[in-house]
């Protein structure tokens, strides 16, 4: 087996409640191989988003280590980790700059995690490339390259967020219920696009979802969080054999 892409070793995250602190994540051990597409399930408050926030550095870990692409990132600042980690949020508004155009957003994302200099942004030279990229979404995004993103539909915005997150092939892609705010039709379109891109680019990906069908249909591995602990981990054939009923027991 190839070397691990992401490793969490005995990770604990606490939240302060008045004088005391309450654990949000308890001794999480997780190893993800390169190219793994892991769906993350769990009830509200189980610690799914906290897991993502610990990986991105938005929540400090109390104990344990996080290693990504061979680098110990446990104490690295979120801006530094952005070079390696891309994230798509549930709210389509979170992933794009509303007053900037689609092309400007793509241009920003193409320089993810790199130093900003006083060199000209060089937008014109990349328009053809962005056009081709946007065409992949098949929802008219390529016709809207010069539109401010606030004028896009939720589906277009989320497709753009997904392109922005994946265009520089991040070491880790985090999808945080990224289709939950969309209507069923658009949601399945975005899910299909997600799967295509993740397979094409061989991305390592964690996806939080509440849609059991999506959790079953996509990915090669499935983990379940309960009360801040990792309570189940199905991979390969084991995951393929799972049914809706198997998963429902974790939400009883």
């Amino acid at each position: 087996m190839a070397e691990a892409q992401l490793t969490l070793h005995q990770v604990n995250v606490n939240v302060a409640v008045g004088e005391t602190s309450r654990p949000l994540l308890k001794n999480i051990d997780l190893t993800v191989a390169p190219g793994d597409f892991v769906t993350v399930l769990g009830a509200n408050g189980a610690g799914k988003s906290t897991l993502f926030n610990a990986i991105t550095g938005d929540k400090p870990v109390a104990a344990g280590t996080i290693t990504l692409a061979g680098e110990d990132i446990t104490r690295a600042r979120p801006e530094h980790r952005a070079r390696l980690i891309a994230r798509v949020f549930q709210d389509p508004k979170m992933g794009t700059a509303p007053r900037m155009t689609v092309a400007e957003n793509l241009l920003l994302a193409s320089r993810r995690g790199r130093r900003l200099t006083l060199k000209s942004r060089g937008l014109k030279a990349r328009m053809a490339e962005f056009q081709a990229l946007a065409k992949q979404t098949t929802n008219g995004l390529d016709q809207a390259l010069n539109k401010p993103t606030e004028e896009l539909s939720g589906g277009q915005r989320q497709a753009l967020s997904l392109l922005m997150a994946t265009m520089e092939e991040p070491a880790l892609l985090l999808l945080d219920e990224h289709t939950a705010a969309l209507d069923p039709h658009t949601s399945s379109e975005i899910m299909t696009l997600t799967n295509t891109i993740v397979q094409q680019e061989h991305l390592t990906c964690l996806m939080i979802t509440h849609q059991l069908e999506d959790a079953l249909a996509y990915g090669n591995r499935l983990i379940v969080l309960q009360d801040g602990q990792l309570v189940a981990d199905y991979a390969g054939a084991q995951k393929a054999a799972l049914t809706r009923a198997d998963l429902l027991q974790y939400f009883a």
Partner: protein
Amino acid sequence: MMSLGVSAIGQGLLYGLMGVGLFLTFRILDFPDMTVEGTFPLGAAVTVAAITHGVSPLLATLLGMLAGMAAGAITGFLTTVGKVPVLLAGILVMTGAYSVNLRIMGRSNLSLLNKANLFGTKFLQALPPYFDSVLVGLVVAVVVVTLLILFLNTQLGQGFIAAGDNPTMARSLGIAPARQEVLGLIVGNGLVALSGALIAQNNGYADVNMGIGVIVIALASIIIGEVLFGELTLSQRLIATVLGSILYRFVLLLVLKLGFSPNDLQLISAIVLAILIMIPAFEHRFKVRRVLKNGVKRNG
């Protein structure tokens, strides 16, 4: 009457720099920076004091601008490192700057009588009355706006816009919004201080109270530009702000012509700004923008 109009254009251009400086924080980064009420007189005080101590007007003007940038950096430090809410951080620096300005000038009003200043060159003085301020204002405004437009189209400039537009997204792309905030405060207050330095030289004195209400003037410039010109690109909006500043000077001229006392100007400025800001709330009901646009077309 003619020369009053020319004077209004000159003053509008010089005050327009302040509007452009505030635009960076108010419109791009999306927070109101009260520091400007302290940095405008700070730029004036430093420049006038330096000139009275024998420094060349050009260098003195640059010193005034640098002082404003330093004050902006302090507000930036308070709000990003010290976690002081940005509105309060601005008020703190503005309040502290009052005492600093008195120290720098040694008194509350410092005259430039018989001293050299940027407007005192032979060439400028040979021009018809008030054309000196128009020419200087025009040159500085063109240089500043051009540099800002170039900056906004660099990689850093795009990161700056993104940080104001969506800090969460900026952070997820590796852009630290706090750094952009400090950058905006430094550059913005530098321009506000530059505006103060030029206005003081044009008026022939610096006064410790000249900062009172300037944020209202700057906001009015920005919002007049927006109300009049509507949908524009970011670069065009910088130019609209300068034009808004000139138009605002004509509004004041009109108000004085109507017989109001200069003492009433602060109240009138506040009322004008309040009405302008309320326009979008009423716009769809009364189609105010169209009425305003038509009014402008008919009058000139």
